[in-house]
């Protein structure tokens, strides 16, 4: 469920079809996930899920796996 929501947000922010975002997507495997796209993803997740990541952690949250772990840690 959480992965599906993240997948949808990532697709929206990177302006690509959801089908192109696997459940284990990362900046390494998705070409559209560049540094500025990453910021859009992070801010959109914060807004949609009412979470606030530590600023220092943001550059490291570059995959769905890492985002899930960070969100679960906060909930």
């Amino acid at each position: 469920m959480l992965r599906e929501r993240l997948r949808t947000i990532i697709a929206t922010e990177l302006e690509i079809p959801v089908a192109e975002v696997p459940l284990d997507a990362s900046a390494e495997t998705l070409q559209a996930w560049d540094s500025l796209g990453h910021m859009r993803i992070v801010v959109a997740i914060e807004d949609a899920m009412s979470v606030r990541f530590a600023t220092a952690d943001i550059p490291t949250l570059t995959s769905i796996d890492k985002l899930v772990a960070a969100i679960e840690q906060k909930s």
Partner: protein
Amino acid sequence: MPPVIRPYAPGDETGILDLYRVVFALNLTPDEWRWYYGNEAIIVVAESEGRIVGHYAVQPRPFSVMGESRLAGLVMGSMVAPEFRNITTFIDMAKRAYELCRERLVSFVYAFPNDNVWLVRRRMLDWTALPSIVSLVGRPSEGARDVSAIERVGLEDTIEAPWSDSSSIRAAHSSAFLMWRFNERPGVEYPVYVHREGGRVRGYIALKRYESTGHIVAFRVEPGAEASTGALLFARANQHFRETGVERISMWSMPASPLHSLVVAGMTPEGAGKNFGYLAFDPETSAQLADGARWDIAMCDSDVY
């Protein structure tokens, strides 16, 4: 290996100009670079294996904050080579530049960033957003007013216009600033008109043409002379644009400007506006700058016009 973040050193110019070409497709000449950055700018670069791969610059600009003199900094020329593009490099350069700003007694920095950079500045670097700046546009108006008292000033003229305003936040347009901004920029012409009375400058207006658009990039008058000198200068600018075939006029005018009510009639807001905001280096200044209604920013206060 991550790039090394360090202050500018003489000799970096070639690498910086190369980076401008790669990132912005802009062929900045050495003269233009010197005009922008000169000896005053605070510049931080990212270097990898002898190559400049990142650049973050702050151009100091004196401001008046509700009548108090402050040194501000316009952030400009923020760029990272595509193959080194990551948030960390950008943020590390910005933080190093802010350290240097504090050492140089810069109170705050301001900028007009694009959407992507703006997101990073607000979320990662604690910038504060102010209302976006919307251009006012209109057609050059037909005027019946006699504007023969308005003179166009030449390159050798110094404009002494030391008027302060205790209620607004605005750049201090000293005579040195006006000379640098409008007379010394390589390859760009800024027609400047003044109104003098008794040998004293009572107001000035600076113009720029881009294709068929005429920009009013600066417009200030002595306090109390808005309806007299202000109206004459504005009429002369309209006449200049009509005579030179300009189809539309564009300018920034904020409600805090004493001339806002004069120029807003007949002009229409256009577009969503430019992102605009600041980062102050102490809480007191941050609180002073937070009221967007007090800012009085003109096109010449950015690096674009």
